[in-house]
């Protein structure tokens, strides 16, 4: 099967934290990546540090940031669904699944990356993961691509165990840091902290940047 990765997340920056390393590695190998982002993160609480956005200017700013982050990671097919941040769980998730199913049928991905429904803390994450999983479930069993999920709720390890797929992304360390930094309005404070931790050789921060764990979804 021809390799093509489909990423489905609800917020600009969701891709940067947990998957930027793997995506950067794959795009460098020439694997095309399609990124479906459901909202523009219009309801973000971070407005830059010091803040430079307001509730009405934030969508345009975050749109530019996600485009910049995609450039950094080598993603050249970004699709913005235009839904509103923090409302996904109230949408008709079958309709959202229809949209995702259409993209799946169009690009025939070999791998889909999304959030693990019920284990992704933010209601938008869970709703997005649920719609994506349901879209895949509509395919015949032998036509379903591999699905990697990000999960980080407190009960994740207890219920799902440790991630079954872990990638060493240390060779794209800088790219990952740059992708996170591209989401300036959300990550300016975080990046400053991270850089400080890196200077101090903080193992937890280094490991967080160097390792990406995923759960293979078992249908």
């Amino acid at each position, binding site marked *: 099967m021809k390799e093509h990765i489909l990423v489905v997340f609800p917020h600009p920056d969701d891709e940067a934290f947990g998957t930027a390393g793997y995506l950067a590695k794959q795009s460098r190998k020439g694997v095309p990546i399609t990124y479906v982002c459901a909202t523009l993160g219009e309801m973000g609480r971070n407005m830059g540090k010091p*803040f430079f956005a307001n509730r009405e200017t934030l969508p345009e700013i975050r749109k530019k940031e996600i485009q910049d982050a995609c450039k950094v990671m080598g993603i050249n097919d970004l699709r913005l669904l235009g839904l509103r941040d923090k409302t996904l769980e109230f949408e008709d998730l079958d309709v959202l699944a229809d949209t995702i199913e259409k993209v799946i049928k169009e690009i025939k991905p070999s791998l889909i990356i999304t959030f693990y429904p019920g284990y992704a803390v933010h209601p938008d994450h869970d709703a997005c993961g649920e719609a994506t999983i349901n879209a895949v479930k509509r395919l015949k069993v032998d036509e379903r691509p591999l699905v990697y999920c990000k999960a980080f709720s407190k009960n994740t390890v207890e219920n799902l165990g440790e991630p079954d797929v872990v990638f060493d992304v240390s060779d794209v360390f800088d790219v990952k840091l740059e992708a996170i930094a591209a989401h300036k309005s959300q990550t300016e404070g975080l990046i400053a902290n991270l850089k400080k931790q890196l200077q101090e050789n903080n193992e937890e921060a280094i490991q967080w940047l160097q390792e990406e764990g995923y759960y293979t979804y078992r249908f």
Partner: protein
Amino acid sequence: MKTITVEDVQKKLNELVNTELYLHLETTNGAYAAHNDATKMNVGAYIRNALISFSLGKITGAGPYRVGLKTSLGWIYAEGLTDYHIDEHDRLLLAGHDTEGRLAVAFQLSKNPF
């Protein structure tokens, strides 16, 4: 946005009395509040483009500020407001930012839908 000047906000509120307006009001402590600290609960409320008009609008407090609007049958208010901006669409944008610069409350009025 800049730090609230009570006179400027009050002047704008006075201009908007008895006008049909669209309201955006939200408050939140973030989707990760309980995830980051189990003693907390996630709380928030959000309304966008509620059509309102008010007979009396006032900004009070010593900063952070409170803004209250008296409507024909009730009240609308928000507290914790620190910054404001009147944008190019003549919309009054009021916001409360915490010490980290994160938006904790937004209270916005516009003559056209947001």
